[in-house]
């Protein structure tokens, strides 16, 4: 590289640095000085003591609607929602990958569609499906299933963009058409990432309390929101414990699956 080029690159970098700096100055300008409230200690400790003395009575209730049941319901909703979105995201993630898609136009459109799904508020999505199938777990599954496509599509498309294309060349050379090439050269490479993101999304769905609460889907969402809004920390504590245990078990399973795939 010639000195002028280096110089040019450096000025570019400095310019970017200045812009980034300005953005941060602007961002900080919106934030007042941090002050810690006098009462915070008291409240903090009362919240913590509540959370650490969970309401064990909620774990199981023969009449139903206890922690175990709602967690199970959440699990079913999350599982199905994840399954749907993992299928739906597949075409998108390849159309949005720069190195796979045929035209720039296709990449641009697919990426924008994915962005659109991502910015679409959960609550509006929920409303749409409530109108279609009524409140309940089915609407929850649909909302989660569609809502996750934006995220999965984006993350998977990016990991497709970073794969090693040399294997693809080999398949082209053997006379494979694009679909065959894709199945043999691309799919095996992105599969681990695909599962990794899907499992991550599954976990997000388990915690998608807000949307499931809105949608009347049963599950753990509504009880958690209600317990939080009346500051029933013991109830919050037991629900959190339930979610943590479930997520941890899931995490253990998912990392085992992942380590087999990598």
């Amino acid at each position, binding site marked *: 590289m010639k000195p002028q080029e280096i110089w040019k690159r450096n000025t570019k970098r400095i310019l970017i640095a200045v812009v980034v700096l300005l953005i941060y100055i602007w961002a900080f300008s919106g934030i007042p000085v941090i002050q810690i409230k006098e009462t915070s200690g008291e409240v903090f400790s009362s919240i913590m003591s509540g959370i650490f003395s969970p309401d064990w009575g909620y774990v199981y209730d023969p009449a*139903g609607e206890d922690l175990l049941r709602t967690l199970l319901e959440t699990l079913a909703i999350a599982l199905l929602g994840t399954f749907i979105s993992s299928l739906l995201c597949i075409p998108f993630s390849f159309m949005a990958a720069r190195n796979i898609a045929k035209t720039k136009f296709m990449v641009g459109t697919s990426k924008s569609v994915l962005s659109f799904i991502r910015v679409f508020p959960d609550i509006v999505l929920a409303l749409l499906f409530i*109108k279609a*199938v009524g409140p309940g777990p089915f609407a929850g599954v649909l909302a989660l299933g569609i809502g996750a496509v934006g995220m999965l599509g984006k993350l998977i498309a990016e990991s497709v963009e970073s794969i090693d294309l040399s294997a693809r060349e080999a398949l082209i050379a053997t006379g494979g058409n694009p679909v065959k090439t894709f199945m043999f050269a691309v799919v095996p490479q992105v599969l681990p990432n695909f599962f990794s993101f899907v499992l991550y999304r599954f976990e997000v769905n388990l915690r998608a309390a807000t949307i499931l609460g*809105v949608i009347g889907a049963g599950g753990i969402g509504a009880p958690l929101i*209600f317990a939080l809004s*009346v*500051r029933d920390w013991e109830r919050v504590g037991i629900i959190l414990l339930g979610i943590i245990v479930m997520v941890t078990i899931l995490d253990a399973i998912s990392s085992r699956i992942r380590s087999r795939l990598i």
Partner: protein
Amino acid sequence: ACGEGSEDSSTSGAGGGEDTGGSSGNGGGEQSEEASGEELDELNVQFVPSQNADTLEAKAKPLEGLLSDELGIPVNVSVSTDYNTIVEAMGSDQVDVGFLPPTAYVLAEEQDAAEVILQSQRYGVNDDGSATEELVDFYRSIFIVREDSDIQSVEDLEGRPIGYQNVTSSAGFVWPAATLLDAGIHPLDDVEPVTLKGHDQAVISLLNGDVDAAVTFQDARNIVSGDYESVFEDTRIIEFTEKIPNDTVTVRPEINEDMKQAVTDAFISIGKSEEGKEIIRDVYSHEGYVESQDSNFDTVREYEELISTEVTEN
């Protein structure tokens, strides 16, 4: 937010594409083609536990059993955290019975989505937050300030930061705003409005000094009394709002009259039976139900109209 599902999202007509009928009158039932109305072989009930209570339970099952016994058809009860979804679901025939707070009801009615049949009853609330002996079908909202504050009346609020709820909330905005307007204070322009999510946050922000006054439903301080033990000593009520009707029980207007009556009777009898009473008290903090009619909500409409013209034109 304690709750996306506080009493936010009441509603105001204006529902885009749908024909929203007039704002008056007794339900849109007449609009449905079959004069006799729909038969139901299954009843879908949805509610948002109302936040003007100090316990919230997201329990649907107990009510399912009770109602199903009374009506002789299967009943599905679900719990939501947002009124808007109930209204939309009723509008598209997905939900037959909804528990709505007064403003939400008025807006739903404007969209021909709901018709009131009952109102819930509760015990009244004393100034210290405890319950009275008397059963009432309304509650009030209060303006509270810190004990040592120089604010004595709503007039003193001018220019001060006030903690509201969302502008669609009956207790957290609509009624208090009307009170302020009566006192000659514009609820948004003449004070420093701060929108908070959840009545507990309103009380806490007041205690923390982030706002100088807060509006909440009557016994909201009970919610935070566990975390801030001296909340009742540290705060002071300066004003009550007018009566806010309790939660309504509404039905879809298209349902046939017999069924509406059956549902009405079912709720009333649940409220009277020992077992039923215990359940609705535990779960919904309701003590019983009384019949209601649309005209009871005319005052609500006035408030609603007043506020929405004053506020949303902003």
